[in-house]
């Protein structure tokens, strides 16, 4: 199971805990994790990535293992520690404002 940490608004929307676990078959990538996340929590469709283009929404970031993975191609493998469930993938609302 892959661990995903959701920002407050999406946690409330999905009516779940801050951290969720979703099943993902290899390869474990941002795309496959989001596919599984949206499959488990359909109300999250369109909130993290555009439903038509699958592009990450501009003010959403992906962090894992102390790195910003937002600009990594979504089909690249995630770090092993995310794939083996020891570290979570963070979905973060970007800092925006003043």
């Amino acid at each position, binding site marked *: 199971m892959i661990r995903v940490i959701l920002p407050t608004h999406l946690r409330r929307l999905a009516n779940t805990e801050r951290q969720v676990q979703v099943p993902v078959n290899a390869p474990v990538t941002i795309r496959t994790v989001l596919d599984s996340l949206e499959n488990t929590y359909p*109300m999250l469709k*369109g909130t993290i990535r555009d439903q038509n283009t699958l592009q990450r*929404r501009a*003010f959403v970031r992906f962090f894992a293992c102390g790195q910003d993975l937002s600009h990594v191609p979504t089909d690249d493998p995630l770090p092993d520690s995310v794939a083996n469930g020891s570290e979570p993938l963070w979905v973060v609302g970007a800092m*925006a404002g003043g």
Partner: protein
Amino acid sequence: MNGVRVLVGTRKGAFILTSDEKRKRWKVSEPIFPGWEIYHFSGSPVDPNRLYVSQSSGWFGQLIQRSDDGGKTWQTMGNKFAYEGIPGTHQWYDGTQHPWEFKRVWQLKPSLTDPDTVYAGVEDAALFRSSDGGQSWQELAELRKVKSELWQPGAGGMCLHTILLDPQDANRIIVAISAAGAFRSDDGGESWRPINNGLKSQYELPDPDAEVGHCVHNLAMHPSKPNVLFMQKHWDVMRSDNGGDSWDEVSGNLPSDFGFPIAVHAHEPNTIYVVPIKSDSEHYPPEGKLRVYRSRSGGQEWEALTRGLPQKNCYVNVLRTALAVDALDPCGIYFGTTGGQVYASADSGDSWKDIVRDLPSVMSVEVQTLP
């Protein structure tokens, strides 16, 4: 319950304000969808417990929520708004062509006859319809073939913000778009034509009489006289007596004919309300006095309604979807401000009282009169 339910959308959540038919004591709900922008919050005229919410955020995009129990519980509905075919382009601020991009839903208009049918007016401007209670959405795409290459975004974005459904003709739909104008379909959305003849935009358009491109802010119609339409344009208050085929200015003695919302009294088809705003760059009431103006003659002659409204140091705005009426007698009038106040009048506008003063900035107000 008997009484009214005021559905309020704000920059940071939705609220439900309830009262009995006397409209003196109000209950204000906790925030619903706290932290989200609620561009519109509306109820089905067929089933008052069926509510629809347009919920959006700069971070997480657009969601549609539906309640079947008057707002006690909610379910997230479909939010896939895909333009039909190749979306094409419209005019951008710099005069170049810009591709159509979905941004948000400005208006949710439930059908007058079917609780599962609801229309969505969106930015970039287009009209969608759902026939399954908001689970899936289909564009009424012929609208965007009406000279849409000349449509351009107003300051608030290129949004389809107003949808009128004709209670006497199920095939007639009228919409307004900033900045494109008003459009009408007489065949249920299959085909459309601009209805902007008589609008003059001498400060906004190189051709003041252009067929499209006008910045229409809001439209209103009384159900008993659907051929009579009222319009608050960017500047000018307008009236049509032929379903929009032609328009005449009825600004008359208003202190400013700039403004956003316009509404019609529930029982007097010729009594209309506007909230004059100083100018397109100074979005607050003239002289710092918050005044609703009422015309009992369908325009031209206007009276200021001030009792209970701040008459000094008031610099709030009232947005286009933030003025509504109930169906009680005497008619109740309601509006919300960008300062977070929701004002109500239980006597057709003669006197006003705030229901609540410190909500987040109000974006929309709709009223349900409950049996």
